[in-house]
């Protein structure tokens, strides 16, 4: 039987109209629903139950839970949340389902460890998840590196950081920087050079473009911090020689203390304030800029 043209037309129009209305209503329903009520719920807390429900396809289930952990952290981080209550359980379930998913230990720890708003501010839980990863993957030196970073950056436990880097450096084919970092932790843990080695090591060893970019931003900030500390020393020298502060870098160059106008890592001229302090022209480009103490140490190594 030939389909009626008018019925086809009416049915098609109705289909489109009903779809549009249902889509709008669905949006309205989502708007009315309390956001956190659903997202902050762990539907299933037991990895064992999930393992059963997945019919043995645990790899895919772990990927789903890892993606959920990333989304949970991202969504809460985006709104500046102070609490990330479900993050550690989500990571625990993920790594129970797939103990070889090393990315969940590494990134998971970097979500858990830094203080809010950068992270969940739970360095002890971050240590626990990485130690769990090390038990499951004892030959992966990246996990020891990650553990060392948490102890160094967030727990300020330099002895534990030294131990972590030392344990990692003993693994065959571990990156050379682990030995270097173990040494630095034992000698001079809080100085800027150690921070440079930490981020250089991260930059050299990661395969993730996001982590590489973060490490590069840290390295640029560290370079600027060193430049500023050096320039302020020259400003002091100028004041000692002339009895007053320089009005500009040009004055310092004329006094043969500088070869020219100093440029920051982004090739923009540094700014000399009237009080003798030096700063970068665009501080927003330097996310991790801190002042360097006269002894070369930073007030607190940044873990962001």
């Amino acid at each position, binding site marked *: 039987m030939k389909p009626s043209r008018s019925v086809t037309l009416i049915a098609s129009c109705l289909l489109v109209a009903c779809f549009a209305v249902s889509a709008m209503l669905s949006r309205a329903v989502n708007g009315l629903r309390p956001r956190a009520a659903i997202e902050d719920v762990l539907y299933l807390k037991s990895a064992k139950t999930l393992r059963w429900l997945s019919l043995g396809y645990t790899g895919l289930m772990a990927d789903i839970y*890892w993606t959920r952990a990333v*989304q949970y952290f991202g969504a809460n981080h985006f709104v500046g949340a102070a609490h990330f209550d479900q993050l550690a359980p989500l990571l625990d379930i993920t790594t129970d389902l*797939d103990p070889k998913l090393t990315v969940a230990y590494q990134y998971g720890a970097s979500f858990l460890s830094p203080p809010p708003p950068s992270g969940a501010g739970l360095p002890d839980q971050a240590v626990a998840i990485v130690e769990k990863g090390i038990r499951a993957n004892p030959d992966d030196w990246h996990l020891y590196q990650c553990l060392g970073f948490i102890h160094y950056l967030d727990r300020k436990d330099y002895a534990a950081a030294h131990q972590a880097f030392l344990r990692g450096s003993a693994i065959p084919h571990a990156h050379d920087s682990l030995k270097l970092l173990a040494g630095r932790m034992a000698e001079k843990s809080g100085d800027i050079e150690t921070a440079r080695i930490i981020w250089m090591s991260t930059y050299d060893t990661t395969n993730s473009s996001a982590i590489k970019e973060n490490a590069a931003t840290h390295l640029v900030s560290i370079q600027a911090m060193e430049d500023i500390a050096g320039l302020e020393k020259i400003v002091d020298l100028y004041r000692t020689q002339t009895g007053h502060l320089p009005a500009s870098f040009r004055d310092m160059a004329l006094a043969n203390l500088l070869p020219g106008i100093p440029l920051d890592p982004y090739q923009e001229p540094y700014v000399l304030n009237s009080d003798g302090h030096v700063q970068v022209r665009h501080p927003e480009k330097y996310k991790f800029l801190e002042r360097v103490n006269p002894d070369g140490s930073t007030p607190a190594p940044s873990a962001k």
Partner: protein
Amino acid sequence: MNSRVSAIASNTFREAVRDRVLYNLIGFAVLMAGAAILVGQISVDIEKLVVINLGLTAVSLFGVIIAIFIGIGLVSKEIDKRTLYTVLSRPVQRWEFILGKFFGLAGTLVVNTICMAAGVFLAMLYVTHKLQPSDASVLAALYFIVLQFLIVTSLALLFSSFSSPLLSAVFAFAVFVIGSFSGDLREFAGAQSGASHWVAMAAARIIPNFSGLNVISMVAHGEPVAANLIFANTAYTFFYAAMVLCAAVLIFERRNLK
């Protein structure tokens, strides 16, 4: 394979294709393309893992569903349509009919799996831009999935040889689920003592060992699959599927078709 078995097998294959079974490939292609493109945006550093895990899990589940839902109808449909009488009135033995049906559906599933495997490798190539030598272990996982299909197909045929399609589907799916936990059942048996140990151990031996055929997580992490595991799983599947087919033949030989 004798000519009668191969004739029934090729007809079964043709019928499955005519029933649009291979249309599932469209759904699979959409799933893989979506995973390859989207996962990088919603997760961190697991693009390749997801493509392998999702791809192989989908290959396995799509195939198991096809094996069960086509397999359960292989005998009952022929009886309902009365075409079985036409076939058996010719010089075709009942065991040849069962074997032909088995090979026909197995062939359909192999073709389906080859197409899906191509999709998995294309998606892997899309997310990594270059295949590694360790990716060859994905082929071993795909081979194990095909072995899994052979067992499921034989089970569906067995249930189909004496039960209604609905009950056959329930039985076959139940055995698939239980078989997926055969490893846990063996662990449970090991932890028991006395009669419960022997009962659990016997159950673990009778149900198909699907957990031994699942190496998806392993290959997703680039771990190689040992040659002796491939050999052992091949031999296990051959003997298990042969055992189930023998049971199906024994039942079907005695079935009153009037």
